[in-house]
Structures are given as C-alpha cells and as structure tokens.
C-alpha cells in the first residue's frame, strides 16, 4: 500500500505539474487547485498507465478522495 501511495504521489505531481504535492487518504479535489472535473480524466488515465490497470466508468462513480482511489487501485491490481 505504501508503495502505491508513493507511486500515486508521483502521478499527482506529474498530472498537476507541481512537485510540492503531498497526498493523504483524505486528500480530495478541493485540496488541490488544479483538480477539477476536467483534469480528473487526465488523472484517471495517468493512474491507469502508471499501475497498468483498467478503470471503468463504473469504478469512478463515488470516488471521493485519495483513499478511495488507492482502494480502487489495490482492488484492480489484485484482480
């Protein structure tokens, strides 16, 4: 999980072009300036590439924060 967390931090930094971003489980869209409904799609695509998983429309419904996203990544990797 820790490993995923670090990798996800890198993804966030590259998508939002900000090397200072730190994320926790409770981080959500209102904590990161650039994270809105438009960049969300870029983020999901970058996560898919970084973790070599496939995320469907079903999966993204109800993602509320980084913790939810990490759970999703874990679930997809196990699948």
């Amino acid at each position, binding site marked *: 999980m820790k490993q995923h967390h670090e990798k996800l931090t890198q993804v966030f930094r590259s998508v939002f072009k900000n090397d200072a971003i730190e994320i926790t489980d409770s981080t959500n869209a209102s904590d990161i300036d650039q994270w809105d*409904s*438009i960049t969300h*799609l870029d983020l*999901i*695509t970058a996560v898919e590439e970084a973790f070599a998983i496939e995320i469907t*429309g079903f999966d993204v*419904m109800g993602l509320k924060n980084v913790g939810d996203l990490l759970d999703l990544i874990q679930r997809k990797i196990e699948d």
Partner: protein
Amino acid sequence: MLFNSFDFLFYFSVVFLSWLVTPINFRWVVLLCASLVFYGWEKPTYLILLALTISITYYSAIKMDEYKKVMVKKRVFLYSAMVVNLGILIVFKYLGFFTDIYSQLANLLSFGLKIPPLKLLLPIGISFYTFQSIGYSLDVFFGLRKPEKHLGYFALFVSFFPQILSGPIGRSSELFPQIHTPQKFSWDNIGYGIQRFVWGLFKKIVIADRLDVYVNDIYSNISHYPGSVLWLGTFLFAFQLYTDFSAYTDMAIGVARFFGFKLAENFDFPFISKNVTEFWRRWHMSLSAWLRDYMYTPLQFSKRKWKKGATVYAIFLTFFICGLWHGAKFTFVLFGIIQGLALTYEMLTREKRQLWSKTFNPFLYNTFSWLLTFGFTLLSFVFFRAESTEDAFLLIRKQFTTFSDVAAIKIFVMHFGGIKFAFSLLLLLFFILTDKLFSTMVKLQNRKSFVLTMITSLLIVFIILFGTFGKVDFIYFQF
C-alpha cells in the same frame, strides 16, 4: 404555500408544535404527514405522481440490491425507475413543448397528422424531487449506498417539505443518515433556523419582490425601451434572480434546521466569479453538483478515447440538459448552449489563461476577468428571463445599439416614481454591500453573538417596514 406568507407561518407553527410534543422516535411521522399535506395543499392530485415516484424508486432500489450480482436484472430495475421518473417529467413538463415543435414542423413542411396543442399543468417541484430520486437510484445502482428499507423514511427523503418545491436537491449520502438519527430539539437549531429564515425573508420580500415590478415592466416592453433601459432591466433581473432563489434556499435551510436537518448549500456568492467555470461552482450548487456527478462525469468517461473531445461532448450535453431542465422553452435551451460554449472556451484556453494571469498585472487581470464574466452572466440571463428567443435577440441587439440613451432611463424612473425607485436601488445597494458579511454571519452557529442578534433584529425591522408579504411567487417554482 409560499414561505413568505402568513399561511405558511401558521402551518409551520402547527407542524413544529406537533413535532415537539411527539416522542422522538415518531417525529419522522409528523414530518412526513406535514410534507404530504404541504405538497398537496394547492392540488391534492399531484400527490398521486409523488406517490408513484416514491413507490417505484423505493421498490426498484431494493430489487437492484437483491440482484446486485445479476447485472441484467439490476439494469432492468434501474431502467424501470428511470423510465417512470423521467416519464412523469417528460409528460408533464416537456410533452407540450415537443408537440408544439412537431406542429410547427408539420405546418412548415405541410405534412400529415396534426396533434392538438397540449397544455398539462406542471406539478410544482417536479424537476427537483425527480432529480433527487434519480440520484438515489443511481447511488444504489453503482453500489454507493444500500437501499433504504423503511418506506416511511424513504418517502420523507423524497418529500421533505422544506426542500420539495425548489431544492436544494439532496443526496442520499447526506439525508439518510439525518433521517435515521432521532431528531432532538435544540435551542441552537432554533437560533440558526430563525437567523437563516429571516435573512432569506429579507432578500425575498425587501429586495427581490421590489425589483420584480421594474424587471416585469422592462421585459414586457422590449420593443418600446432603448438599450440603456434594457441594460438596467438586465442588471436588475440578475439580482432579482439571485436574491429570489438564494432567499428560497436560505428559508428552506432555516426551516429544515428547526427539525435538526442540515440541507446542502446552494450559493456561494456567484457574482464574484472570475470565470464561468467558477460561476457554476457557486450558482445553484446542488444542481450543478448533481449534473457533474450523474451526467457530466459518466458522459465524459464514456467517450474518454476522444481526449479533449470527450470533455467538449460532456459539457455540451450536460448544459443542454441543464438548460432544458429549467423549462420547456427554446430560450432555456439557448441559455444552456451559451453556457456550454463559454465553458468549452474556458476548457480549451486553460493553460493560456494561466499564463496570462502570470504575465499581466494581477489586479488588472482579475478585474477584467470579473467584468467579462459578470457581463457574460448578465447577457446569458436575458435568455433565462425573455418570453421568446425573438425577444431575447431583440433585447441584446438593442443593448448594443441604443445603449447611450440615458434620458430614457430618467423617463422610466420618473414613470415609477423617482423616490420609490431610488429607494429600491438603495436597498439593493445595501444588500450588495452587506451580502458577504451577513451571509457569513447568519451561517455561524453562535446564537449568543451580540452582532448576530443586532443583524437579525435590523433585518426584521427592514422586513416589517419595507416588505411585501406573499405577493410574488418564487421564480424557481416554475421549474
């Protein structure tokens, strides 16, 4: 029943007292009965539609959960709930519009079957509670929440009287935990409820309803007035709409708080927005969040291979529906399309604009951005208010051709009584200057604050001296 009427004051007192003397575990029964009576007040037949929405949504959600492993069946129950809810909405709200279009086309192309014009009465609040119910169905379908097993609780979720007529559109994740928690009496809630209700009442009957007279006159005589007066009308309407709808929301939130319920916020000073994207984050927030979560995101995701095209596609479809949601008229469709165009422009120029904001003097850049956004909002509201698209285009054309006729404003003002108009304008100015401070203050929990008590008392004095009770409907009731 209008919140700003003595009927409501009386009704609310009876409901609140009954709620108070009822044992905690049965208070939901009082609220449910009160909600049904409130909704059926003007036309009891509308209760049949409400009952249909409640029962189908309730039952299909339980079935969706039962068949959560059998996708085909789960989908069947989702679709049946959607068909019923959207079906009611389409028949009662849009069928007349569609038959009109058909008849016009039939006339134009002179072909066959004529349909007689259809005029069904629009059940009040239908767009709000239908969307709330659809949101719930989707939450259960996507596994975001367990279905509500208690029919009474579920009926209260759909029909809760402070919000059924004009929102805020509630989410299952916010409302069900509150319905399940026994509602206790608290002085803090009463204090908050009164502050919030008084603030709303002030906005509605001291500001919005005063502006109504001028806006009505200007919008009914577009061909008569020059651009200068039309600009005045457009400006006044923007504030009428904001004060009217945010007043309703304040009163709804205030009333709900008496019973311990916290409803979603709907407004966050929309007119200070520096771009249209920001505007939609601050205006009718419960609707825009609903559209974002249940329409925009799934649409964008479904076409994600199109990259930026997916976002443009999702923006346009969402705002087309957003426009149509407001009413079955071409003016509203155009309102949605115009918003979609602006948002697409902002999406495509995101990076450039970030660069500009760093290159130019920040004060000048921000002021210019704000002016542009506010100007755009005013012009888009013309489509919101105008009776027809012809009227809207005529008004905008005149705004850019005969805007310099200042003398006409003087004649308009004199016609309505110079002092009376100046006074209304003064009250509006008072509101604009104090909106941020008062809104922030009344949202505070501290009922023992001296300043807050002073503000609330001041507002009550204004209401008594300058208010008009129960004369003008809320604008959003028509949706």
